């Protein structure tokens, strides 16, 4: 106990301090506010300061990142949006905090259910972002979003997402989750082909 430990420890702090400047000089202006600069600060080789200047800089989110869910729709040729959702209710059943509310539509003539929800609401105050709805949806109709900036001034007015507010086009889904999208489309094409083959046989 002669104070050597403290001095050695201070050496580590000092190294950390200087490495920030070394890294800054090495990278120049590119270290901040550029995608490669952010990637560097997230990498295993980073030395010195690692903080990100949010909101000017944002960390890129990985494909599997999940926040509040959205409903996928496909835009038809006549301009209407057809939701993939069939209101089967699996998402409502699998939701741990039970924040998904679905009203199943019935055909006025036959009284039988039709595969399109009449109402669909998610209380995003209650949603815990677990992603089980997206995981167990058999129709790839509900997916988890990447947008995490959902702050509003009035939660009672703005935080109940209805069918319109939840809806997003397939193209958006394909853009945020390209790998998942490609895999699902391939699986669907395969199933389609198998069905066609069965019909032919």
């Amino acid at each position: 106990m002669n104070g050597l430990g403290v001095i050695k420890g201070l050496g580590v702090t000092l190294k950390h301090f200087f490495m920030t400047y070394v890294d800054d000089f090495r990278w120049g202006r590119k270290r901040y506010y550029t995608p490669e600069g952010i990637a560097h600060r997230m990498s295993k080789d980073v030395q010195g300061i690692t903080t990100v200047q949010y909101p000017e800089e944002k960390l890129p989110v990985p494909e599997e990142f999940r926040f509040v869910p959205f409903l996928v729709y496909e835009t038809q040729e006549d301009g209407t949006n057809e939701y993939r959702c069939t209101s089967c209710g699996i998402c409502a059943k699998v939701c741990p905090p039970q924040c998904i509310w679905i009203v199943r539509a019935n055909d006025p003539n036959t009284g039988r259910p039709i595969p399109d929800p009449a109402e669909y609401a998610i209380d995003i105050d209650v949603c815990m972002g677990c992603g089980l709805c997206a995981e167990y949806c058999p129709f790839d109709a509900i997916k988890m979003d990447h947008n995490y900036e959902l702050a509003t001034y009035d939660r009672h007015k703005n935080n109940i997402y209805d069918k319109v507010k939840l809806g997003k086009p397939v193209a958006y889904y394909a853009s945020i989750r390209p790998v998942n999208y490609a895999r699902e489309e391939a699986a669907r094409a395969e199933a389609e082909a198998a069905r066609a083959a069965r019909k032919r046989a």
Partner: protein
Amino acid sequence: MSEQTKLAIDTDLGYIFSDILRRDERPGYEGYIVKTDALVAFATALRDDIGYDYLVSVTGVDYPQDGILEVVYHVRKSTGGRPLNFKVQVPREQPVVPSLVFVYPGADFQEREAWDLLGIRFDGHPDLRRILMWEGFSGHPLRKDWREAYFEEEGKPFKSRWPEGHFARIEKRNPFGKNVDYPAGFDPESWVPEPETALYAGLSKMERQGDETGIGTESIILNLGPQHPSTHGVFRMAVKMDGETIVGLKPVMGYLHRNHEKIGERNTFLHNMPFTDRLDYFCSMSNNFGYALAVEKLMGIKPPERTEYIRVMMAELTRIVNHVAAIGFLLNDLGAYFTPFLYAFEERELILDVFEAVSGSRMMCNYFRFGGVARDLPDGVLERVRDIVCDRLPRKIDDLELYLTNNDIVRHRAEGVGVLTPEQALAYSTTGPVLRASGVPYDLRRADPYSIYDRFAFDVAVRYHGDVYDRYLVRIDEIRQSIRILEQVVRDIPEGPIQEGKPQYQVRVPAGESYGRVEGPKGELGFYLVSNGKPNPWRYHVRAPSFINLTPLECMCIGQKLADVIVILGSIDIVLGETDR
């Protein structure tokens, strides 16, 4: 332990104690049912003669259809092996069980919890007060006939959500101002809360009698917390002090209590998975692991090979995350304000990036499924893990050690502070780094291996002084051992499927009980489940390490200075989300 030895011990127990216990013969259950009045004698014999010196968990189950409340004990041998469970059944109208505090001091908080939540009286318990709810709370929430505010149905999924799920805000059904019932004659305006006499009375028995100087001093009572920057959350310690020296300490908790277990019993089995993330929010992957093991044990399934490797990888990364954070917090408590903490968090963030890429969330991972994991590792993750554990972490941990381990201030403040002897550590049922820093080399990954831990070469970290400094060192050692395991995982991980059978959202769980546990970063995290074959668990109990590790807090703090209490608490490494549940 081989099946034969296990059988031999079982037969022996049944033979030796044939007059006071019988086998639990309900389908899916195991262990023994002990006669209530013979419980203390049985436990003493078990501890002293048969070697079950380590009480793991005490909890209760309510069976209103049979009119009984059951207390379930799990005991272990500190030399390793499977736990033995035994139960006591008492009538619901008069649930009195002899307390085991004097046989196993570690039963202290757990019996209080069972009293609080289930209303089981433990006869002979020295301080049987409520522990998670407040004094004056009416009823015992885990009884099956107790209903919470905003009660909707006994079990999820609720029928109001589909197919006629017209959205209704829950506050609409139960508007503010009309949502409370007061008992007759109660006026909230003029009500004065009762003084916490019982709490402070508990402190007085530790008071020092007389003083060698002959000058009489008056001890004072000080409340640390619940809002105190050093208590890692909303945790309160009522401290009795003689000058600067602690003469008595009582932890007060439950400020973050949300009755996780009641929620768990309303949930379906799968619903519980994301809820376990919220227990110890630093180690959600480990929490998932323990729960998945418990349910898989009931279902009788095993995950595929690749999944086992992924699970071990996630659990060990979690251990590193937790230990670097714990060291950072400990140094904060020592007064090294935030610099070591932030250095530690740099490493943590890199690992959280991995969790985010794999599971979609940095902290609330919800990654494990029954018989598998949610998804396979995305491209590039394995390389990233390899980069981090093989290249960056070893040198960063060396840096951290150079920075802290021999720092004179750290050593002055931590050495010889908060000593817990091995005997005490075992008696008080501590687990994890707290137990191992006291010289008991007990690690579930070795003592009673689960998953595929028996395949990896690693050492059980152990230190022998039992003080704060050794708890710090044990965590550093464990990080190094985790890195060792991870190196083997990334080397050996096979290709293959990641889910046993088809992924299902409604799993069929046969009736029975199971206790699934992992060596979590904070200690033994156990899940005691009782299923009756329905979609919702009948009983869902969490054996929370950061709750039970607090039992010896008073014993560690007595005789220390006030400033050391903060450090001792920091060295136990608690997370209030798990302590209060």
